[in-house]
C-alpha cells in the first residue's frame, strides 16, 4: 500500500507544534524541586561580547581571551586580592607549592606541586616552566607579554619538579613579574610547533592547561565550552561547566541575562535600577584597575617639538582643571555609584593614595589664572582669546564610549561658562587609536578623554607617565615629561621596602598632579549583571573571573541546565 504524502497543512501543523514545544520548553528557566546534587553542579553561561582572538596565553590580547586562559591555565603562584606586587609575602602557591630565593636574589627556585597534571593526564614538570618562558620571551613568537618578562634571563631544570628562574637584576617586583605575567603551558603539546608558527597553529585553538576548568569545545560565533576538571590538584570547581556565548550586541546580551538565557554579562547597559527590579539578575559592582582622564597635549597636533598654543602653559592646564566640577560630573554620569579619580592611578592599585592634592574646583581662580596667562574675555561672544586667537580646542574621543560622550558634553558646557570653547571630535575606535597611539600620526589631537587600564604593578606607571615612555616604542600618550617625576618613579621601582615604595609613589603622583598634564575624571567601576541563583564568593579588580571555581549554585536553585551531569559533556561521551 502506498503511503499518502503528508498534506501541506499537516506539515505546517507539525512545524508549529515543534516550534511551540521549543519556545515553551524553557531550557534555562524552569526551577527544580528539591532534587539535585550536592555542593557541586551547575552550568554558568557568560554572554561574552565576542569570541577571543586567541586562546593560547602568549598571544591573548583582549579580555575574553584573558578570562578563558585564567580558567584553563595556571601561574606558578597567585597574587592576593589586594594585588600587592612587591616581594612574595602576599602570594599563594599554585603550580609551585613552594619557592626559595638565592642569597643574591638573582634566582628563585620553584618546587612544583607533584599532584599537578595537565588536562590530558600528563604531569606538569620543570621542563614545562622552561618551555613557557621560552615561548613567552622568544622574539620569534612576538608575544605582547615578552616586554613584561624582560628581566627574566633564563630557566634551568634541577629535576622534574624543580625549576630555577634566573633574573638579570634584582628588583622589588621580580617575583610578581614571573608569577603574574607568565602562564605555564605544556611542552609535550606545543613543543613540536615552531615558535613562530604557534600563533596560527590549530593546536593553539584547543588549549590544554592545568587549571580548574578544562577546554571542551569552541564553535566560533556560537559557543566556547569549558567543564570542571574533577581531578584537579587544587580541587574541582563547584560549577560543572562554563559556557561563553559570543553576543555582539549589548542590548541582546542584556535581554539574555534578564530572561535567564545567560547568567552573566560585563558592563550591563541601561542603569542599575533595571537590575534592582529584576527577579532574574542582580548587579555586581567591581572596582577595576581602569581610570579615565582628560589629557592635554603639550605639543601641537602631530608635532614632537612645537609647543601647543594652549596646553604648553601649566597655568592654563591648571585653570582648565579648576574650571570643572568633577564631583558633579561624577554624580551626573554614575549617580551615587561613581568613583572619583584621585590622580594618575586607579584606587585599586596597591600603591594608590587618596590624599594626593588635585587642583580644586574654583571657577573664579580658574578665570584669574586664564587672565594672567593672557587669555581674556573680550570677543563679541564673550569667549576668551589671546592676540586674536580664540581659546578653543578639540576633544578627541571614541564614539563608541557612552561614558566619555556624556563627560565630553558636561565638560563642554562647563568650559563655555568660563569662556573656553571645546569642540567634541568623536571618531571610530580604530581612528582614535591611530591618532593617539605612538606611531606615524602620534599626538594628532589637542585633548583626549582616555581610559588607562593598568596592570597591578605601579611600575607600569613609568610607561604611562615617565619620559622613558615617550616615543614610538612607548606608552606615554600624553608625552608628559618631568625630571622630578622620573626620579621619584625610579626610586619607587628600586625600593624593596613596601613603605618606601608607597612613599615614592605618592610623591610621584603629587608631582604629576601639580604639573596638571591631565584632569583626573573617574575610576571605572564595572557594573556587571549576574543571575540571582549564582552564589558569587569574591571578585578581583583585575578580573571578575579569578575565583569562578568557587562560585556555586545551591541545589534548590538549580534549573534544568544545571542538572545535566558532567558525563553528558561532548568530550566525555
Amino acid at each position, binding site marked *: 500500500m502506498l503511503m499518502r504524502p503528508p498534506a501541506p497543512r499537516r506539515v505546517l501543523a507539525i*512545524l508549529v507544534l*515543534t*516550534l511551540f*514545544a*521549543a*519556545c515553551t*520548553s524553557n*531550557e*534555562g528557566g524552569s526551577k527544580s524541586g528539591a532534587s539535585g546534587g550536592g555542593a557541586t553542579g551547575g552550568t554558568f553561561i557568560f554572554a561574552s561580547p565576542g*569570541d577571543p*582572538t586567541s586562546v593560547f596565553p602568549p598571544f591573548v*590580547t*583582549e579580555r575574553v581571551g584573558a578570562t578563558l586562559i585564567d580558567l584553563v591555565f595556571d601561574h606558578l603562584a597567585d597574587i592576593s586580592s589586594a594585588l600587592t606586587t612587591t616581594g612574595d609575602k602576599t602570594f599563594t602557591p599554585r603550580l609551585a607549592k613552594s619557592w626559595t630565593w638565592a642569597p643574591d636574589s638573582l634566582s628563585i627556585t620553584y618546587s612544583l606541586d607533584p599532584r599537578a597534571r595537565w588536562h590530558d593526564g600528563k604531569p606538569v614538570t620543570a621542563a614545562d616552566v622552561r618551555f613557557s618562558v621560552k615561548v613567552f620571551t622568544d*622574539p620569534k613568537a*612576538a*608575544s*605582547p607579554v*615578552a*616586554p613584561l618578562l624582560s628581566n627574566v634571563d633564563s630557566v634551568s631544570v634541577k629535576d622534574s619538579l624543580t625549576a630555577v628562574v634566573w633574573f638579570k637584576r634584582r628588583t622589588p617586583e621580580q617575583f610578581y613579574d614571573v608569577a603574574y605575567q607568565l602562564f605555564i603551558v605544556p611542552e609535550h603539546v606545543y613543543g613540536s610547533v615552531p615558535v613562530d608558527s604557534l*600563533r*596560527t597553529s590549530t593546536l*593553539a*585553538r584547543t588549549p590544554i592547561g592545568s587549571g580548574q576548568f578544562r577546554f571542551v*569545545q569552541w564553535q*566560533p*560565533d*556560537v*559557543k566556547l565550552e569549558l567543564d570542571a576538571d574533577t581531578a584537579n590538584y587544587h580541587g574541582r570547581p563547584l560549577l560543572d561547566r562554563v*559556557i561563553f*556565548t*559570543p*553576543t*555582539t*550586541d549589548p542590548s*541582546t*546580551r542584556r*535581554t*539574555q541575562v*534578564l*530572561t535567564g*538565557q545567560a547568567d552573566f554579562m560585563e558592563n550591563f547597559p541601561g542603569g542599575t535600577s533595571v537590575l534592582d527590579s529584576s527577579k532574574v539578575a542582580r548587579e555586581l559592582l567591581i572596582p577595576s584597575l581602569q581610570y579615565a582622564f582628560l589629557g592635554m597635549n603639550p605639543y601641537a597636533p602631530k608635532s614632537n617639538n612645537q609647543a601647543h598654543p594652549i596646553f604648553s602653559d601649566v597655568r592654563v592646564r591648571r585653570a582648565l582643571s579648576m574650571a570643572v566640577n568633577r564631583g558633579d560630573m561624577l554624580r551626573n554620569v554614575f549617580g551615587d555609584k561613581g568613583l572619583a579619580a584621585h590622580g594618575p592611578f586607579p584606587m585599586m592599585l596597591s600603591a594608590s593614595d587618596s590624599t594626593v592634592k588635585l587642583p580644586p574646583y574654583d571657577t573664579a581662580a580658574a578665570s584669574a589664572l586664564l587672565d594672567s596667562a593672557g587669555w581674556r574675555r573680550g570677543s563679541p561672544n564673550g569667549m576668551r582669546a589671546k592676540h586674536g586667537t580664540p581659546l578653543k580646542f578639540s576633544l578627541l574621543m571614541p564614539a563608541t564610549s557612552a561614558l566619555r560622550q556624556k563627560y565630553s558634553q558636561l565638560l563642554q558646557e562647563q568650559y563655555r561658562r568660563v569662556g573656553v570653547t571645546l569642540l567634541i571630535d568623536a*571618531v*571610530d*575606535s*580604530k*581612528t*582614535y*587609536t*591611530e591618532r593617539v*597611539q605612538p*606611531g606615524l600620526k602620534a599626538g594628532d589631537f589637542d585633548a583626549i578623554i582616555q581610559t588607562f*587600564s593598568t596592570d597591578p604593578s605601579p611600575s607600569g606607571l613609568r*610607561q*604611562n607617565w615617565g619620559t622613558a615612555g615617550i616615543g*614610538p*616604542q612607548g*606608552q606615554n600618550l600624553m608625552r608628559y615629561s618631568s625630571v622630578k617625576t622620573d626620579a621619584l618613579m625610579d626610586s619607587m621601582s628600586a625600593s624593596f621596602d613596601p613603605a618606601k615604595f608607597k612613599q615614592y609613589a605618592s610623591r610621584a603622583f603629587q608631582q604629576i598632579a601639580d604639573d596638571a598634564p591631565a584632569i583626573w575624571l573617574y575610576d571605572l567601576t564595572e557594573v556587571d549583571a549576574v543571575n540571582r541563583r549564582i552564589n558569587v564568593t569574591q571578585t578581583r579588580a583585575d578580573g571578575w573571573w579569578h575565583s569562578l571555581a568557587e562560585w556555586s549554585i545551591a541545589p534548590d536553585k538549580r534549573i534544568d*541546565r544545571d542538572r*545535566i551531569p558532567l558525563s553528558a559533556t*561532548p568530550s566525555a561521551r
Partner: protein
Amino acid sequence: VRGRLAARLGQSVVVVFIVTTIAFFVIRSAPGDPFSYDSARITPAVRAEWRARFGYDQPLIVQYGRYLWSVAHGHLGYSTLRNESVASALAEALPRTLALAGLGLLLSFIIGVVVGTAQAARRGGWFDRITSYVLLVLYSIPDFWGALVILLVFAYWWQVFPAGGIVDAMHDYMPPGRAFADRLSHLALPLASIVLLTTGAISRFQRGALLEVLPADYVRTARAKGVPESRVIWKHALRTALAPMIVLLGIMLPAMLGGTIFVEQVFSWPGMGLLAARAIGSRDYDLVTATVIVGAVLVVAGNIVADALHVALDPRVRE
C-alpha cells in the same frame, strides 16, 4: 544564447575584479590596521612585528600583487580576527546567511505575492487601503530598529523566543527532536524581522504588476467567457504578473545579504553580515576583502539567473 552567456560571464569577472580592487584599497586606507589595538599592554614593537609577519608593512601595491596572486591560487588569505583561514570563516558563515536570507526571501515572496494579488483584485477597497498602509509603515521601518522592537517584544516582554544566537548554549545536550525545535526557535525572530521588513516591497511590486496585467485583452476575454473572477485573477492574470516577480527574486537574494547585517547583529546570528561588520571594525583586511568578493559574486550570479529566468519566462525577450 551561449555567446550572450559567455559575454555576461566575462562582464561578471570584470565586475568582481573591480569590486575586489576597490575593497582592497578602501579598507587599507581606513585609519588603523588589524594590530592597532587600544591597549597599552601591547607595545608598538610587538605591533610592528605582527604587521611585518603578515606583510602589512609592505607598500600597498606589493600587498595588492600578493593578494591577487593568492586569490588566483584559491587562497583568500588569513583572518587576523579569528586566527584561522578566511575560507574556514566563510565556510561557516555563508551557509547560515544563505539559509536565513533564502528562507526569509521565500516567505516574504509568498506572503508578498498573495497580499499584493489580493490588493490588486480589490483595488481601492478597504483591504487594499489598510494593507497598503500597514505594509508601507513596515517598509519604512529601519532594519535595526525593527529588529530591536521584535527582540524587545518577543524575547524580553513575552519571552516566547530566545534572544539571540543560532542555537541554545545547551544545544549539544538536547535530544534530536528538541535540538531541531531549538534551531527553529532561534530562527524565528531573525526570520520574522526579515519577512516583516521585506514583504512590503514585494507586495507593492506585485500589486503594480498585476494592475498592469488586469486590463489586458486575454483577461477581458476570460471574464467574457464566464470564468469565475477568482480563477481569472489567481490563475490567468497572476501567471503573467509573476514573471517580473521571479526576476525580482533573483535580484533581491544577493541584495538581501547586505540587508541582513543589522538583523544578524541584533540577533547575534553568526552569518556573513555579522562577520563582515566585525571584520570591518577590527580591520581584518583579508576577511573584509573576501566578504566583498563573495557579495559581488552573489550579486552577479543573481543577476545572471534573473536574466536567464526573464528570458525563459517572457517570449518577447527571447525574440
